[in-house]
Each structure stands twice: as C-alpha cells, then as structure tokens.
C-alpha cells in the first residue's frame, strides 16, 4: 500500500470499499476508481452490510456516504474501525450535516469530501487517504478548529486525561487550511516544508480522535458498561 507520487498509480493496488445507497453514483465511483488503478473489493448500499462485508473485503480505504438508510455515519465509522483499526475512512456527503461530519471524524474517519467534488479530486483524495494523509476541506478545518475552541471553553475544570489543545503553530496551520490555502501555499507562507504542514494537520486530527476514545472509555467505565457493541 504505497503511493509513490501524488497522481501516480499505486504500486500495490489499494483495496477500496464503496458504501453508498445510491446505485448509480456508487457504481460510477467504483468505475472511476478501478480506472485509476484501485482494487475495488466491495460496493455496498447499507451500513450493516458494510460492517459485515469489511472483514472479508479487507479494504485499505472505505469511501463512506454519511447518509445511509440504516445506520448513522458515526456508527458505521465506529464499527468499521472496531473490525480493523487500520481501515482508513474517507467520508462523503451531499449536504454536510456539520455535527455528523465532526462526530464521524472524531470516531476515526480520516477525511471528508463533498459529493460535488470532481472525479479527479476524489481520486486524489483516495490516494491521500490511503497514504494516511487526512483530507481536510475548508469546511472540515473550520469544524475541527471550532471543536478545539469549544473544548477549551467548556472544560475550565479539566477532565481526567486533559483537554486536547492545539499548539500555536497547529492553530495557525489549521486556520490557513480553513481559509482555503493549499498545503503548498501554507508551507511557503510559514517557511516550513510541505511535510511539516501535513504533520501539523495530522496531529490536530490525531489529538481529537485520541481524546474522543478516552472520553468514550471513561463514559463506558462510569456507566459500568463493557465493550459490547
């Protein structure tokens, strides 16, 4: 699972699963991905089905529509990651119901793309997701930025495990992403490498997901629940 260059075809085909309840759309996506050299191992229309198929299909990347008929996007992400923590989820949605997008991201999704994106953008986003590089749209950066601010504002008495906080540089990078600058432009403006910008964005997401897991565990312990999904 290696992506040598941005637009290059992966050396070992990346295995992709497409989860969407619109047949025409998901088949078009599957075709585009196959043409771009991806190994589309499963195409399903429902969340439960996706979690059932995933262990056999062993996808590297799951392209997940957040509006599924049976399960919420957050729930699907949670279950997929539970079956295989290495699965990388790229969310897609037509109308970004903001809280859903944020919740799914915190549950472990790696990126978000609007459905109005062009096929080339989708292919690139899948390549980046496969490489573990979060795909942040402007809207997603705004949501993540807002979530850190909210966490900082609510938790004056810090909960055990602490509140995730962004470093000054991370905030700076995230704000620039939210203002529509490309990684290249951000790197130029801050006089750092492209890789550094990528790392900062990755960290902002990583801290949020870690915090989410800690919170969930804490909640489960408090409620005297075990990990029965």
């Amino acid at each position: 699972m290696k992506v040598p260059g941005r637009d290059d075809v992966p050396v070992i085909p990346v295995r992709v699963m497409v989860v969407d309840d619109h047949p025409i759309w998901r088949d078009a996506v599957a075709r585009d991905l196959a043409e771009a050299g991806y190994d589309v191992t499963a195409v399903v229309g429902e969340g439960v089905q996706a979690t059932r198929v995933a262990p056999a299909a062993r996808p590297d990347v799951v392209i997940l529509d957040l509006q599924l008929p049976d399960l919420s996007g957050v729930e699907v992400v949670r279950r997929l990651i539970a079956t295989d923590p290495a699965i990388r989820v790229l969310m897609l949605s037509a109308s970004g119901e903001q809280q859903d997008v944020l919740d799914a991201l915190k549950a472990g999704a790696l990126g978000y793309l609007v459905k109005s994106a062009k096929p080339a953008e989708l292919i690139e986003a899948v390549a980046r997701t496969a490489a573990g590089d979060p795909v942040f749209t402007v809207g997603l950066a705004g949501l993540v930025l807002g979530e850190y601010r909210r966490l900082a504002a609510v938790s004056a008495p810090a909960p055990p495990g602490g509140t995730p906080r962004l470093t000054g540089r991370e905030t700076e990078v995230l704000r620039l992403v939210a203002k529509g600058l490309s990684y290249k432009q951000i790197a130029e403006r801050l006089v750092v490498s492209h890789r550094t910008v990528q790392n900062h964005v990755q960290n902002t997401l990583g801290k949020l997901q870690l915090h989410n897991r800690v919170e969930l565990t804490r909640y489960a312990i408090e409620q005297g629940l075990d990990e029965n999904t």
Partner: protein
Amino acid sequence: MWLYRRGDPAAAGPAGNRSWQRVRLVTAGTLAASVSISLALLTTQRMADLLGVTWSALARHAVAQTAVIGAITLVTVTLLAALAGLWPLAGAVTAAVAQVAVLAPVILTLTALYKNDPLRWLAALAGAALGAAVAGSRWRVPLAAALTVLAAMALFIAYGATTGDPQKLAVQLIVIPSVLILVLCAAAGGAVVGATAPVPAARGALPAVLGPLAGTLAVGGLQATQVISVGDGEPLPFNPQITSATLLLLAGAASTGGGADEDLRGPLQALAAPAVEVATPAQAVKLPSGIATEVVAAVRAALDNVRKHAGADARAWILLEDEQDGVRVSVRDDGVGFPPERPAEAAEAGRLGIAQSMRGRIADCGGTTTIDSRPGQGTEVEFWVPRVSRTRR
C-alpha cells in the same frame, strides 16, 4: 420578534444569569419611565409654588430657573445612569432628543394637513419609511445627519415664512410646505434613532432606553399640546400621549426581539457560492442580532469588494471562529491583491471607500478590522467583534 419574547433562546441556554439581566433592565426601564413622568409634573412653576416663591419672581430670576432645571436634570441623569448604565442612558438621550425635536413640528404639520386626511397619513408614512430606509442603509450616519440638516432648514424657512409664528401653518392649513416638513421631520427622527439604536441594542440596553424615551415622549406630547392650543387652530385630531404610548409599546415589543441572539452561521453559510467557500464551527455562534446584522453586512461588503477588484476568476473563503472573548470572521480571496504601502492607489480604485464602510460597521460594534494584502497574493480581511458578557456561554 414576538416569538423571541416567548421562546427566548436565552432561556434555553444555561443562563439564569441572563434572565436576571433582563429583569434588571426591564426594572430599570420601568423605574426610569416613572421617574421622567413624575418629573413632567414637577415643572418649575410647581417648584416655585412648593418653595413659596411667586412664579413671576422666578421668571424674573432666569438664573434661579436654570439652576432648578439643571438640578433636576442632573439628579435624573445620575439616577438613570446608576440604574441602567451609561450605554442605555446615551441611547435614551439620543432617542429622546430626536423624538422631542421632531414631535412639535410633526404635530403642527399634521394639524395643518387635517383637511387632507389621506395625504397627511401618506406623508407621515413616507417620512417613516424614508427614516427606516436610511437607518438600514450603509451610509446611515451621514444620511441621518443630512436629513436632520434638511429638516432643520425646512423648519427654519417655515419659521421665517410665517414671520416667526409657525402656528400659522396650522391655522392656514398650508399643504405643500407642511407635507415637506412632515416627511423630513419624520424621516430625520426615525433615521437618527434607527442609526443610533444598534449601539445600545447590542449591549442589551433597549428596554432601559425605551423607559426614559416613553417618559420624554409623554412630556414632549404634553408640551406640544400646549404649543398647539396656544394658536386658536382647530381642536387636535388625536391625543398625542395615547399615540406616543402606543408607538412605544410597539417599539418595545420590536426591540426586545431585536436584542435577542442570532446564530451567525446561517447567514454566513447562505453566502456560499461556487466561488465562495464557508467554514464554520459545528456549534451555534451567537451574537446579539444587531451586531450579527452588522457583521454579515461587513462580510457582504468584503465579498462585493472581491467581485469588483480581485479579478474575474477570483475565489473567496469565509472562516467563522468562535473565540472566548469574541467572534472572528475572515474573508480571504486569491485575487490580484494590492500593495499595502500604496493606499492612495487603492483609494483611486475605489477600494478604500468600501474598506471604510466595513471598518465603520465593525467599529460601531466595538470591534476591529484588519486588511492584509500583497500584490499577487490576494487580500485577507479579518473582522473581530467582542462578545458581550451577557451572551457568554
């Protein structure tokens, strides 16, 4: 707006603090109203009676009269400031001055137009509409000032034309100058109050502003009645006190809604377009609606600027951030930009005017605007407005 009074979003929030604030403001407003109404009864003449001084003696000693009125004013102002705070007081004074200044000429001209019934209501409506339009426009401060000057000029000319006896207007039922005065005065009064109201409203001060305003209007109405009944014109077609009281009730209802909070995300997301991307937090970003309106208008102005100057295929990004002590909105474009060291050039291109209008709006809300641009790197405008303590979540 009525909806806000019933299902006030503040009540849903974790804010026993806020409802207490509201109670305090309403109480202050009511007290302030009672104070000014009782003051209306407390004329210098009654004071003279109370002190056992004859009215004529007081009239002879103008200084004593001034001192008495001054003392009353001082006590009232101090009392009001202590009760409601300085912002409500400033708003109340502005509104009251504008209303009282306008009331007498308006009533005079309404009487002059008594025979042309539809015409006078039409003229009064036209004036009110003009005032509202001005108050809502981008250039409301200069326009309100211009209207005030125009109204004053019209009054001055009417005063001269009636050889210093404006009641003649009412007696002679002169139509055209009366319509002009009516429209201008109503518009000027509305524009001044409307242009200044967002400042106290944003600070949650309107109920307290309306209290003293009610009192002043009642007093103004009382005096206007006296002014008119001096001239032996026709009897008054309506009771000014009742009218002003009704108007105030309506204004009070409207402004309580106007003081409610508004989520900035909705109006900003509505600005999204193929070339405009909007990023916001997932939670509501609330500001008092007066301020929210100003911020959205400033963002619109910034986008207009992008459309006009950044180039045909320029894109824009709007970022809304909810900070602890304020709200920040950035508008960035990837257009041609302009050199910051050459503002004269920008002024020539017409950019500075728009920039000034944006700055003005944000400064009205106690906020700041920063504009950053370099040639070839687009322009970034950042608005920051403070969060008022009562809206802190």
